[in-house]
């Protein structure tokens, strides 16, 4: 008995030793900064100034009166809704297409996944080029029709969606791979049986495939939502948040506040708010989608 338990303890020690490096790094570079930023969000930390005063909740109160912060919040939500919904539809469509036996599907899978491997900043620059020079030269070929004179990144009401399109192009492949995995898990027996029973392709999709991959959908939606709420690279590379505040997402606003305006304390307060928003939305999504999943 005692020999047995010491063996277990020895094993535990080995496990702990294996986890330790990762845990120490995680603690040092994640937990500690996180706790410190919560502390700093209650202070008036400013740029190079060494004097830090405790100011309680005033940064948080200021945030909700700050027009620019509220703009960044709506911009982020618009972006997230657009990218999550359209993005998931696109990747699901691609997955359905590539789950059939069309020729060259493994090549196509690679092609669609490829943008995901590229650096976000580079993707951003390439798309800036596409929206600008490439689009304009196309229009010149078509003789500059008035109704196609779209300023993709310069128009305040569509710029954020233009960035969204880029994001979808970049991330659709990733979600697609997960969807394909989900679709391939569905046993062909069920689908065959349905066809024999006279179900149409549409019915098979809505009544069989969709319910069976709903856990995958939940996962993809949650992954996409969290990454969209934190989006930073695309707006920075493509518009630097402009024109005005039209594409300043929350993460970019935090960056501007902290590094251009030197308002470090206020910036950390907003990053705490961003954290809370993401946490609430994720928990809500999990609960809600899980519920739906069980119903289905």
């Amino acid at each position: 008995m005692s020999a047995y338990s010491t063996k277990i303890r020895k094993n535990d020690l080995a496990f702990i030793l294996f986890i330790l490096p990762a845990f120490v790094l995680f603690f040092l570079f994640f937990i500690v900064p996180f706790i410190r930023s919560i502390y700093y969000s209650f202070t008036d930390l400013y740029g190079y100034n060494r004097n830090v005063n405790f100011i309680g909740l005033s940064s948080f109160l200021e945030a909700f009166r700050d027009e620019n912060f509220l703009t960044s919040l709506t911009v982020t939500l618009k972006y997230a809704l657009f990218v999550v919904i359209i993005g998931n539809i696109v990747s699901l469509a691609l997955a359905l297409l590539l789950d059939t036996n069309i020729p060259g599907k493994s090549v196509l899978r690679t092609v669609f996944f490829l943008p995901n491997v590229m650096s976000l900043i580079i993707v951003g620059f390439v798309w800036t080029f596409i929206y600008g020079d490439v689009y304009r030269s196309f229009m010149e070929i078509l003789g500059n029709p008035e109704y196609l004179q779209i300023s993709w990144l310069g128009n305040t009401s569509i710029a954020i969606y233009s960035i969204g399109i880029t994001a979808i192009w970049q991330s659709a492949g990733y979600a697609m791979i997960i969807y394909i995995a989900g679709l391939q898990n569905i046993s062909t027996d069920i689908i065959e049986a349905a066809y024999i029973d006279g179900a149409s392709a549409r019915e098979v999709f809505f009544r069989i495939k969709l319910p069976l991959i709903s856990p995958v959908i939940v996962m993809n939606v949650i992954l996409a939502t969290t990454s969209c709420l934190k989006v930073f690279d695309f707006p920075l590379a493509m518009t630097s948040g402009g024109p005005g505040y039209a594409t300043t997402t929350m993460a970019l606003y935090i960056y501007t506040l902290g590094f251009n305006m030197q308002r470090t304390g206020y910036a950390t307060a907003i990053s705490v708010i961003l954290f809370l928003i993401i946490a609430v939305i994720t928990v809500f999504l999990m609960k809600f989608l899980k519920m739906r999943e069980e119903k289905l």
Partner: protein
Amino acid sequence: MKRIFCLAIALILLISISMGCSNKAAVKDAENEKSDAVSKEETKEEKAEEPKAEKVNLLLFHGKQEAQETFSEIIDEFNKKYPNVTIEQEIVTNDPSAILKARLATGEVPDIFSAGVEVIDISKGGYLVELTNEPFLKNIVEDTLKSSSFTDGNGKVWALPIDGSCIGVFYNKKIFSDNGLTVPQTLSELKNVCEVLKSKNIPAFALGFKDGWTIKMAAISAFSPAVYGKNLNWDADKNSGKASFTNTEEWKTSFELLSLIYSYGNTKTAFDTDYNGACSMFAQGKAAMMAQGLWALEPIRDIAPDIDIGIMGFPVSEDPSEAKLHQFPDFSLCISSKSKYIDECKKFFEFMTTKEIAEIWSNKAKLFSAVKGVSLSFDPVAEDVNRLIAEGKICTQGDRGWPTPFHSEFEKVLPEFLLGKKDINSVLGSLDEAWDKARSISQSE
């Protein structure tokens, strides 16, 4: 086979480690070894074997990639005079001020660094060596030195100005003469020029508003002569409550001038075109004017080396003498109070302020020198500038006295105004608010 392979790799690693060590031994001062992933350049390590003065290794941190060679040249000259001092450049081009801030916070401070607009802010944290009574400051043009970029409210000097630049309106002389136009001296003449160009389908101004800062340059070219040309102390008046954006008529004029620039430029594509796009438009003769800083000469000359252009002050009123060019200090250097070798740093500063070195610098950097009596010959446009200086059509005050957090607010308001999201009165109101808030934040000590 595998074993031999492993052995070979181990050997290579060992050799590379020992080589690394021997290199470092030559440089000696281990604490100045910084290992950031930024472009680094080591300048001449050891000169002739002098009877040993203490070997000093200084780290010079700046964000001016284009000045790398000029600095190397100057450092070489400096080494001839002081063989025991080596200076290493560290150049960070991507957001140098953020990197510098992180360095200051962690105590890994370079001995000498350029700090841009934030000098006074940084000095408040006690990070800088005060330069007020240094003899080499006598070589600097007084007006420049007094600028709020280097001297704080108590008359203490914290940074050494190196050069200055200006912001105004470039114009294409050929387009002007082809269309029978003369250089506008007054606002109504400018409006006339714009109308004539419009009737010929030539955009009057090249706009690259996709890059937010270019809008600010256009704005400065107008508000510096309009507001600060009339009242150099507007910032102080604003701080004391005597003036405000709302009750200063000239601010309203400035914004009207900005929308004039916008409406007569490549308005439709303005927010799709970036700074480089605007420069190439102007260089290719697709637009007659461009409101920018002197640094735009470089991209313009890259595309069209022989283009016949000039620069003028923005005609802000019907009085030709008010069409002033905005001149401001550009590059400056500070000494860290944490440096071990403050005396050597000061020697380098003294060296930078000698006339010969200042001449090398200015003609390479294509900017005005902050050092007295340096003549300029880098570009035909410099003639225009020299003439404007001689006529006194220069305004030295612009955005440099603003509270740091206000800059971004201002930059963001401009496109909102141009795109019609905000009207002029609400813009001015929000600027007043933003200024007061920015000031209270940056002063809470």
